[in-house]
Structure formats: structure tokens, C-alpha cells
């Protein structure tokens, strides 16, 4: 896992709070379902929210394996990283 920067971590946590319909305090260890109460619709909402925030495209096939906030952060960091590499000549 590439190390995630603080802005990405904060952005993911902020996105989680935006999408959740309950007051939540996510940490890196939080499980999306068990701790944060996300159902399948909200997972899709979260993806859209992250794509907007970070200007990335998240492949849906990876979603079933994603459990924790840390995994989301790592995935976003990786996608943001590859986007930056692509756009840097």
C-alpha cells in the first residue's frame, strides 16, 4: 500500500460523513458496514463522491473487497498517484 497523504485521508473521511445518513466519526480502522452503517446504495454514493472530490475513476470490481476506511484511503491514494504520473510529462 502506498502511504496516503493527510489531505487524502481527510478527504475520504469528509466524503464518508457527507454520504452517511447518520452522525459518524470514522477512523482508519472503521469498517464501512459494521461500524459506519453503509448499505450497497451508499457505497455507490461514496464512490461517486470520491470520484468527484479526487477526479478519479474507481473500478467497481474492486468494491466488494473493500472493507475499511484505510482500504478506501489506500485505493484513492493509488488512483490519485497514477493520475498524477499520467499527467506529468
Amino acid at each position, binding site marked *: 500500500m502506498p502511504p496516503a497523504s493527510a489531505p487524502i485521508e481527510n478527504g475520504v473521511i469528509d466524503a464518508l460523513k457527507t454520504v452517511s445518513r447518520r452522525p459518524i466519526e470514522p477512523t482508519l480502522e472503521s469498517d464501512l*458496514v459494521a461500524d459506519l452503517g453503509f*448499505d*450497497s*446504495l451508499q457505497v455507490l454514493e461514496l464512490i461517486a463522491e470520491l470520484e468527484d472530490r479526487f477526479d478519479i475513476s474507481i473500478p467497481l470490481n474492486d*468494491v466488494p473487497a473493500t472493507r475499511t476506511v484505510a482500504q478506501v484511503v489506500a485505493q484513492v491514494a493509488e488512483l490519485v498517484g497514477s493520475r498524477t504520473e499520467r499527467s506529468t510529462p
Partner: protein
Amino acid sequence: MTKSRDPRTLPQALAEAAHAGKGYCFVQNGVDVPRPYGEIERAAFQVARSLRDAGLRRGDVVAIVLADAEQFLTTLFGASIAGVIPASLYPPSPTRDLQRYFELTANTLRAADARAVVTSSSLAPDFEALRGTCRRLSLVLVRDALDAAPIAPDRMPGLDDIAFVQYTSGSTSAPKGVALTHRNVCANVDAINGPSGVASSKGDVAVSWLPLNHDMGLVGMALGPLYCGLPGVILPPHLFVRRPAEWLRAMTRHRGTISFAPNFAFDLCLRRLKDRDLDGLDLSPWRIAGCGAEPVHAQTLAAFTEKFASVGFRASSLFPSYGLAEHVLAATFPPRGRPPVAETVSLDDLNRLRLARPATDEHNTVTIVSCGRPFPGHAVRIVDESGRPLGEREVGEITLNGPSVMLGYYRQEALTAQTIRDGWLHTGDLGYLSGGELFVCGREKDIIIANGRKYHPQDLEWAVDDLAGVRRGRVVAFGDAKPGRADRVVIVVEPNGTVPGAALTDSIRRQVSDLFGLYVDEVALVPSGTVGRTTSGKVQRAATRARYHELRADGPAGEAAGG
């Protein structure tokens, strides 16, 4: 086209529409792809011929598992033309575990006694692999390969043949397939389009993102326009869920006049659309904003109107309605052009006296939206447990009668006999009548509704039953349906003491989420003996639920009001 019309079969309606010249427009990868009804009919003939060539015969069940709207519709029509029975099943969700999906689907295929599956090339190998456990399943057909020469069929189905069977959700316990005749479908579609319904006329455009394996998506938004030769715009459901603004953009682009969606969709637009998303929207042509398939919330509708008023949306377009797949789709509609009518009633009277009385103080009340009146030739009756009709404002089970009542649950005679008694469909929903209008206020049947979809508690119970730490057979699931808000999913479990409570709660939530994509709002770990069993060993869901409510009532007040 508000004049009353003769009943038509699905192929007849398609032929008429093909003649009239309009068509569907499928939004694919962000591009509008118009498909005149004539092209749809031609593709359906190809499918029909291919199914016959594959050896399928009249009365064989063909399961359709296709996410693509155009493929789904042409296959449905083609199967109907070929005289086989199309059964619609949910395709897998991209965010869910495929293995679990196929376990549930295999069970549905067995229950349907399906001889063939029509699916995409990517899912076909998985269906091939199910043939070992689904004995009757002899053909797995890839939709793209159903391209025989289009030949008009020799024998068309009759009005009393089954038009299609709709499996509302994957189920491990008893998959319920709603079987509808062509006469059923036509009666409901004509009522929806007719003068007591949306009064479809030239110039109307239907726009929908609803999945076609959902009654509202298929009957309301795909067959609805087709049966009266109007254009129908169809977006992929995933596009809407990820980008809800796309629904309203399509409404704007096509000058959409009719669109139905469950309450959650209006809610999603409220939460996800930012101010800049409103730029360029024009919702002024939208005259029927149907809301149904799950409880309608007055606050959602009011907030939606407020948010979108600046782009031309009107409260008088809101069209809260009631219906269910067992009644083809729609049961009651409000008068057109009237802003939603809601009543605020006392929750105590509702629950204890089963009486809807206007609230006298502001505490402990609930606001319920009127869903209007039944169609001509159809009837609504509220009855008590013994089936006795109740009076004005008395709360009881909603029962429906008329030509839209389904033929039955496919290959489930006992269940059908329980559900349709003396011609009256027992919906399991609770409501009352006031001034001839229906107010829906809860549910008697053990069904959980989330995001417009129905889940069977037994499926959740079986899924949880296998987990370590659970006393086998001591699990009860139910939807805590309170009027005016979304269901809370509650699972009552007797732990066996081998797994700590917090870990057990986690694993239960994880399991239900993996299998059903559903969040369990509350896992109630209860002492041994709380979950009752009948002498035949079945869990007593109603009794356990009542005990749960007693426990909650004794608990902290904030807890009881939570959710």
C-alpha cells in the same frame, strides 16, 4: 389516448406501437440511442425464432438475467412471442459478492423450474456451472447470439396466458415469482395511462432510470409508454445511483413529462445535487412526478419541491401512489394536478386503537401522505384479521380486487391461496381510507423494504443462523416499519456465548451486507427463550417482534425513538 381500449397481449401492444412509429431511447455510456418500436419488434422476432430453434417449447420457463435495458426488453418480448414464459431475475450488482449471488439465483431457477437462462456472455459460464444443481436447466443462452432470421411467429399467446413472472428478489427460502397474465398487465397499464391515471396523451415523454426487473421500471416506465405508443427514455440504474443529476438532465433534454421513482430517489437528489448541478435544468414540462414502491415521506416531497422550484418543478406535479407487483404495479393514484395531501395523526391512536385520528398535540404524531383512489373497475377494502371490512379511518390490512390482481405466485399454490382470498389480494400493508382516499401506514406482512426493494426476513434469518456464536434457529429478522419513515432492519438473536457480543454484532452485519447489500440498523442480542418457536419448529416472528417492542418500550426513551 384516454379512450378505453380492448385488452391486448404484449406482442399485440408491441405490434401496434411499431406501427405508430415512436420508440425507446436508451442512454448508453452517456449517449442517447433511439430505438423505434419497429426495431424493438424486429429484434424480438429474432429472439423468438432463436428460442424456438434452441428447442424451447410453449410453456417452458426462460429466465432472463440481463442488466442492459434494450437486451432485457427485446428478450422479454421475444420470449412472449415464442410462447415461452419469461421469468425476470435480478442481475448481480457490481458491488456484491458473485458467489453468494449465484447461490440465491440457483435457488430461484429451481423454484421457477427454468429450462433456459438468457444472459450476457460474461455471466454465461457461471450459469453453465449451475446446471449441476439446477437439473431442469438445460440451456444457457447468450443474448448476443439470439440473432436468427426474424420471422413473424405462427402462434401468438392469448390474453390469459402468462405474460411474465417477476422474481422480486433473490431468496434462499421461498422465491416468490409474481405471475401475471397478458390481461392483468394490460388492465393495469391501461388504467395507469387512462383518464383516472396519468391521462397519457400525445406529447408525453416518459423518462426512467428504474431497473426493468422492478415492477415500476418494467410496467410503469417501459410498458406504460409502449402500450400507448409514446416515447420512453431509459437510463441505466447505476448511472442514476452514481450521478442522480443524470436523471434530471435526461428529463430536461427530452422534455420529460412523466417519471416515477421510489421515495429514496427524490431523497438522493436532495442530498447529492449541488447548486451548480441545477444549472441548465428545466423541469417545467414534468407534470407527473410519481412516487411509490416504498413509503412516501411528506418531508422528502416538500424538500424536493423547494429545492427544484427554481428550475420549474411544481408541487402539483407530485403524484404519490400505492401499488405492488402482485397488482401488476399501481393500485391507487391521486388526482392529477393536486399537490400532495397529508394528514398528521396520533401515533398512539394508530398503534393502540388502530384508528387514524387527527393529532391534538404535536407530540408523538406521524404525517401520512394520501395515495389517492383505486382505478375504475378496481376496488380497495380495508379489513381486520378476520377479513371483516373496516370503516372510515379504521386501520387494517389493505386488500385489492379487480382485473390487475395477479394470476398467482408461480408454482406456489399454497402461498397464492393465502394471498388471494375470494378474489381479494391481501397486500400485507396496513392503511386506512378517508374520504375514499388511501393512506398507507405500515406493514403486516413480514417484508422489509429498503431503497424500493423487498427482502424476505427468512432469508436474513437463514444467513445469520450459520454464524458462529448464534444459537441455531433462534434468529428473527424484521423491518421496523414506522409510518412516515424508512424501515429499520432489526435482527433479534439469541447468542450461544461463544463469541463476544460486539464481534457477533459485527459478523451479523457483515453477513447481511455481503448477501443482501443491506445494513442492519439494530442487532438485538437477547436472553435465551426470547425467540419463540411454534410446535412445528418455526420461529414466531410476530411474537418475537412484540417482545422486542416491549423490551424497547422499557428501555431509555431516546433508544425507543431512535432510527
